[in-house]
């Protein structure tokens, strides 16, 4: 895979929603959202690195670049 197509981004972002002292619930603190790899590449260039066929069937994509494992961000605070 060409150097410039190495992943140079994060696929989880976060922000802190404003919390007023009049809000009834304890603040959630950080809110998380996904920014998956498909946002970053444009048209897929040739010769991207692949998973083996067996691995690809398991992971849901042939292309390493597009693989994005998801886990509940609120369970593992501050991943």
């Amino acid at each position, binding site marked *: 895979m060409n150097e410039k197509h190495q992943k140079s981004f994060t696929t989880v972002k976060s922000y802190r929603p404003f919390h007023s002292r009049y809000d009834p619930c304890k603040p959630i603190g950080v809110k998380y959202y*996904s920014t*998956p*790899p*498909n946002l970053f*590449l*444009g*048209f*897929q*260039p*040739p010769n991207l690195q692949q998973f083996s066929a067996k691995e690809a*069937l*398991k*992971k*849901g*994509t042939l*292309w390493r670049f*597009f*693989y*994005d*494992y*998801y*886990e*509940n961000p*609120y*369970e593992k605070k501050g991943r």
Partner: protein
Amino acid sequence: MWFYEKKLQYPVRVSTCNPKLAKYLIEQYGGADGELAAALRYLNQRYTIPDKVVGLLTDIGTEEFAHLEMIATMVYKLTKDATPEQLKEAGLGEHYVNHDSALFYNNAAGTPWTATYIQAKGDPIADLYEDIAAEEKARATYQWIIDMSDDPDLNDGLRFLRQREIVHSQRFREAVEILKEERDRKKFF
């Protein structure tokens, strides 16, 4: 026409008896951004889109039915052995009254599927942008279900489905690029 392969696209395993998860999963069965809506959206739009991207809509629309089948299997496994009492506890009492444990195309809140969930504007860019949005919404729905679920085997299948939404979104974005491209400056991969 279609050929049917009598197996799932990805193995479905459920490790805990938690019919409540079936109630959440049904969102991806008969909800606005669910697999049924996805399949019908793409397979219908493909008639009125430039030739270059018809095949993509056919492929992805077909795959969505394979996903629908996975969701159905998950829901079925979670509810098939549940007593009426257990279904009631899981918030599926109303569902039982109407359907027993039969599957039905409604969302997690019980609203039946409607064709108004999908669009066909006939404008290729408008339709593909809708498809991209639909994929991102399905991806998000899978995240929210994974967040609510503590069944590792079920989550494994849901992660596979979420990954497929990412790939679909990428391909629809590329379809937009193909339709934007000037005729005499094309390259194929």
